[in-house]
């Protein structure tokens, strides 16, 4: 990211090639439409290019940073009402899937990581998993989720919190006991 900070296009290209797959996958999962996902990823990477110096390595990996920006951009796009179809987060089977074809070691590691996170989500009680998915992938606010599910907002908050705590316990590296 040092090179991006010096405004070098070729360095940015490397960053794009390394992280655009994960960013596009997230945007596509959230938006449910290729064109909107492309716009979101383009906006996210242009903002990264134009403000590369704001990356703070103490606050996490480059990938986490880029995916965080992509997530924010997708939420913005969804809340601007670009997508009419408001059941976007619940579509379990997305019709179009474009699997990345190269199975490099990194790719394999990524897939294992994805399985692990997916596993941590899948073992949650349905209502907790659903609240988390509607919020994170659907871009819905807690009030919208409460309305959709017909439960008080406090219940939605509680489900998200409990679900995240359980996921943390599964994903966190086990502590070494004394």
């Amino acid at each position, binding site marked *: 990211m040092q090179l991006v900070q010096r*405004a070098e*296009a070729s360095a*940015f*290209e490397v960053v*794009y*090639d390394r992280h*655009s*797959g*994960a960013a*596009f*996958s*997230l945007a*596509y*999962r959230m938006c449910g439409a290729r064109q909107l996902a*492309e716009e979101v*990823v*383009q*906006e996210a*990477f*242009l903002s990264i*290019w*134009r*403000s*590369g*110096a704001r990356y703070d390595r103490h606050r*996490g990996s480059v990938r986490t940073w880029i*995916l965080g920006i992509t*997530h924010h951009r997708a*939420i913005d796009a969804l809340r601007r009402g670009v997508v009419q179809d408001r059941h976007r987060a619940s579509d379990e089977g*997305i019709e*179009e*899937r*474009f*699997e*990345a*074809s190269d199975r490099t070691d990194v790719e394999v590691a*990524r897939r294992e990581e*994805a399985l692990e*996170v*997916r596993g941590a*989500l899948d073992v949650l009680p349905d209502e907790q998993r659903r609240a*988390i998915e509607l*919020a*994170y*992938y659907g*871009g*819905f*606010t*807690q*009030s919208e989720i409460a309305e959709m599910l017909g439960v008080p907002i406090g219940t*939605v*908050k*509680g489900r*998200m*919190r409990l*679900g*995240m705590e359980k*996921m*943390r316990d599964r994903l*966190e590296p086990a502590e070494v006991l004394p």
Partner: protein
Amino acid sequence: MSERCQHADTVAAFLLGALSDAERREFQAHMATCAHCREDVASLRLVADALPLAVPPVAPPAQLRDRLMETVRAEADVLSAAGPAADKPQRQPRPQRRRRFALSSGRPLALAGALGALVLGVALGLGIGAATNDDQTKTQTVVQVRTVQARVDTAAAPRGTAVIVLRNGVATLRVRGLPAPPPGKVYEVWLLRRGAAAPSPTDALFSVSTRGSGRVALPSVQGVEAVLVTAEPDGGSQAPTSQPFINAAL
């Protein structure tokens, strides 16, 4: 946690992006004063960071990369061209400032912020600032840049990209991935002025390198609604003889 903060349940919603703008601002203000919530956020953040990794992999289209990199290269060129100018800032009288700003003036301003916050596609203002502060002077050089991505007809140029770069009001068209013009033809730029029924011809005629790239300076684009490109017989035409395959709405 023995003393549970009443906002504890908002932590998860905050990390998942499920707060409205107003709720988020309120919670951020609260966090600034609540160590419990800050700790909570730190401890659950790994879950929010992991969630994007669980989605099915979908490969981004190659055209997205082409479009993005065209804009990035255009802006990188402008940045590097601005380098020497940025090294020789003009001296300006130091503006009157309040004391509390003066306190921080010992620290050099980071060039970081100088890359500016830009908005996608239209009305980009790229401030390239070389700013130094001392007790006598505050110097700054600013280059105003706007980039506009053009639409390229994929039937005519499947991998083609085109960007208009406006640097301090001077416009340049940059293209990549275009096929060479047909034999005996050349690419011609047209300007569609506001309120005009037909585009006006320009003397901006160009071809492309063997790799399909090229650039051409444009006449003033003041009052211009769109920049168009067609393939025309050598020497150019006074009225388009083919459909525009590049269209940049300014």
